[in-house]
């Protein structure tokens, strides 16, 4: 286990380095630059800015300089705004993380409960209702969901403000973010719950007179959760790092929007920092998923 973990961590570091390299050279290869605008600034101004941020040097040299700074923990400043990258991420990630974690919790808890209900009451009306709703939700992209929520709750009903200065109302964005993974988890839980309830060890447990609830939750659900966990790891990472569209619709300054605006503006330092940051979270989430597997199901061999 320890050996495996160390190996995985080393691999993770390598992955991140490769990602950073690909991103750096790719973003420099695409046309456009950070100082472009509809009204062009004078060439002397642009030359001064390029010199300031080392953009006048060859790309290879730029990369080495950049990585040196990263090792010192310096992510530099945004080329567009001059704000520190570390404070940009430091401000926006907690917002995205709070939103993402809430959405993940909502999705996991309600997904597992609904999935279990559907499995236990198979072919009865609750099951049918759940299947119907989850199919509907799965088919709907989050931006459609977000727009609909905004339209009904803010405009039609007026229950929630569409925007308030200085604070965020997270109920609607959390809903918009969580519904789709919740639907997926529900279906996943239902399928694997049905599968595990039909196993021999369940029959054995029942034959031995183990109480019904214990059979379902200890023997059934625990085994049914393995496929769910496979999905949850990457899902958490994905919604933790922000959903650009949902953040944009609800005017929440999270990390997702930084990633996209970084690319549009060719804000090289912001692109690099967000990419490395998101990649790290993804890699960590995958690593944790693999390790949790092992804890839940001793049959899985990691080596």
């Amino acid at each position, binding site marked *: 286990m320890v050996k495996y973990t160390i190996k995985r961590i080393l691999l993770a570091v390598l992955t991140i380095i490769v990602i950073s390299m690909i991103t750096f050279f790719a973003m420099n290869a695409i046309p*456009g630059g950070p100082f472009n605008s509809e009204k062009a600034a004078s060439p002397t101004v642009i030359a001064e800015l390029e010199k300031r941020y080392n953009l006048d040097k060859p790309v290879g040299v730029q990369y080495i300089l950049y990585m040196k700074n990263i090792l010192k923990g310096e992510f530099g400043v945004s080329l567009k705004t001059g704000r520190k990258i570390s404070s940009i991420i430091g401000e926006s990630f907690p917002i995205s993380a709070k939103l993402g974690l809430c959405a993940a*919790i909502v999705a996991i808890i309600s997904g597992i409960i609904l999935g279990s*209900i559907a499995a236990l009451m198979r072919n009865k009306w609750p099951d049918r209702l759940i299947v119907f709703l989850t199919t509907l939700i799965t088919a709907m992209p989050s931006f459609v969901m977000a727009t609909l929520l905004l339209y009904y709750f803010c*405009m*039609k009903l007026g229950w929630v403000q569409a925007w308030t*200065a200085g604070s965020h*109302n997270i109920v609607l964005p959390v809903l918009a973010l969580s519904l789709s993974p919740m639907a997926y988890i529900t279906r996943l839980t239902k399928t694997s719950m049905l599968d595990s309830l039909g196993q021999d060890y369940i029959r054995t447990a029942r034959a031995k007179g183990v109480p019904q609830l214990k059979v379902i939750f200890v023997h059934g659900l625990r085994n049914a959760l393995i496929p769910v966990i496979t999905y949850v790891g990457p899902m958490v990472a994905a919604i933790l790092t922000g959903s650009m569209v949902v953040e944009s619709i609800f005017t929440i*300054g999270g990390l997702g*929007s930084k990633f996209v605006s970084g690319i*549009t503006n060719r804000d090289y330092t912001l692109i690099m920092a967000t990419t490395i940051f998101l990649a790290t979270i993804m890699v960590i989430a995958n690593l944790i998923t693999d390790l949790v597997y092992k804890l839940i199901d001793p049959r899985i061999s990691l080596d």
Partner: protein
Amino acid sequence: MKKVLAMVLAASMILSLAACGGSKSGSQPAEGTTAAAASATTKTDPETLNVYLASEPAHLDPALNSSVDGGCLAVNSFEGLYRYNSEGKLEPACAESCEVSEDGTTYTFTMRDGLKWSNGEPLDAKDFAYSWKRAADPANAADYSYLCEVFGDKFSYETGLADDAVVASEDGKTLTVQLGAVCPYFLDLAAFPFFFPVYKETVEATKTDEVPTGTWANDAGDAFVCNGAYILQKWDHESSMVYVKNDNYWDADSVTVKTLNFMLTSNDTSAYTAYQSGDLDFIDSVPVDETAAAMKSDEFKILQQLGTYYIGFNYNSKLYEDLGLDEEQAKVFRHALSLLIDRQYIVDTVGQTGQEIANTFIPKAGADGNGGIFEEGTEGYFPLATTEEEMEANVEEAKKLLDSIGLLGEDGMVNKDVSFTYLLNTNDAHVKIAESIQADLAKVGINMSIDQQEWNVFLDTRKQGQFDIAREGWVMDYDDPINMLEMWTTNSGNNDCQFGRDDSKALDWSKYDDLITQIRKEADTAKRTELMHEAEDMLMETWCVVPIYYYNDPYMLKSYVSDVYGTALGMKYFYHAKINAQ
């Protein structure tokens, strides 16, 4: 059992939501901001104005800002020597008066007494002298540093502004400005954000190697010191900004709205929703798809704007050689294309806010720098077609022109394959305009394809002249034709048509460069206006610049708000706004 189950279903959702804990704002709507407020005629909180201008500004530092929305934020929180009033006229602001020397090159501003920064420290002419030199400093690399060219020899991009260009008197009461030549729009510049004062102490204290301009305006806080009506109190990046009234502002008595909130988003649909649900009182743009519906509302307003939407032809494009046209014939060809475009259809279906179609490059309402309107009394460079008959006449004329260069066949269509590409950035409105032009040209058999590029790629491609025709647009920075004429000099970064950049061409563009230099130096304003007409003629005779329409500036304002005004340069002023005044 069924009932219990239904409750469990509901509870599971609610519980897991509650598990996250409530956000700061909770889910209770604030008073007066429910859906019902959409049609409200009064506002429960008459001291707060909620505004949407655009997405997150790149800079709040007035010297570094180069966007119109950033300019709006600047004019509401900083103030220059002069400012615009609700009639769009200049009036003294931080200055009390201004004297101009007889030769028109020396301006002496007398400062208002008792001016203060938002932190209570005194503000005088010395602060302006510092701020202007700082704005022009090459280390700041400000986009708008070219505005300093009005200082003539006293400014260079390498060394910035000379010490004797802007001199504050010992007592800080007067500011003497020495220009390179007569500049009829200098007081407009005195009201332009680039020339607003910044607070030396925090600017200097927050300078770093990476950010030599100082980080004082990157966030709300003690370092953010200003001298205008509002001061930044809170900035949630890419979400909102809260400005509160600056009690140290000299004109604070006339400011009744105490809090100014700005929504920061690039999603104008969300802003429109917030406006409709009463969470916003002002929106500076309306989604294209909603424009037709929104226009029916009394709250929909349109401001005149000094700017022109046009298409630019690359003078050096290989297209003309391929068609066997020499430079003179190429001009005729472009002239014909210009006549084929149904501009009225474009403004009716895409622009939709009653834009005026254009046949001059300088906007119709623009000043001439000599006390008049530049295009007054001119006929424009081609007949405008607002009716079907007029359009038909233009098409006939176009066909004659095509015939004169041997491109028209007997069937009234072009007699050879005329194909080229229209370059634009991905944007619904631009694409629709391109498609309309495409259909117009197809009527004579010209085959125009549309090349959509991502914004930043587009800027590069256009700048480097790798196109046949490209979408173009310019909104004036200040109300003088030179702003739209000097951009076409050979070495200008905005010379997208690539004039004078191909030595093999017969076109002698140095004449245009000389003309611009002459305009900059001309002391006689009447003569200067004449020279500017000459320059516009020279530019338009190339037929590389084909105007489509003059911009206008639609916005929406709740009926309970009054005294919000804007200028034709796109600035919006909120500091005299009144809520529930009627």
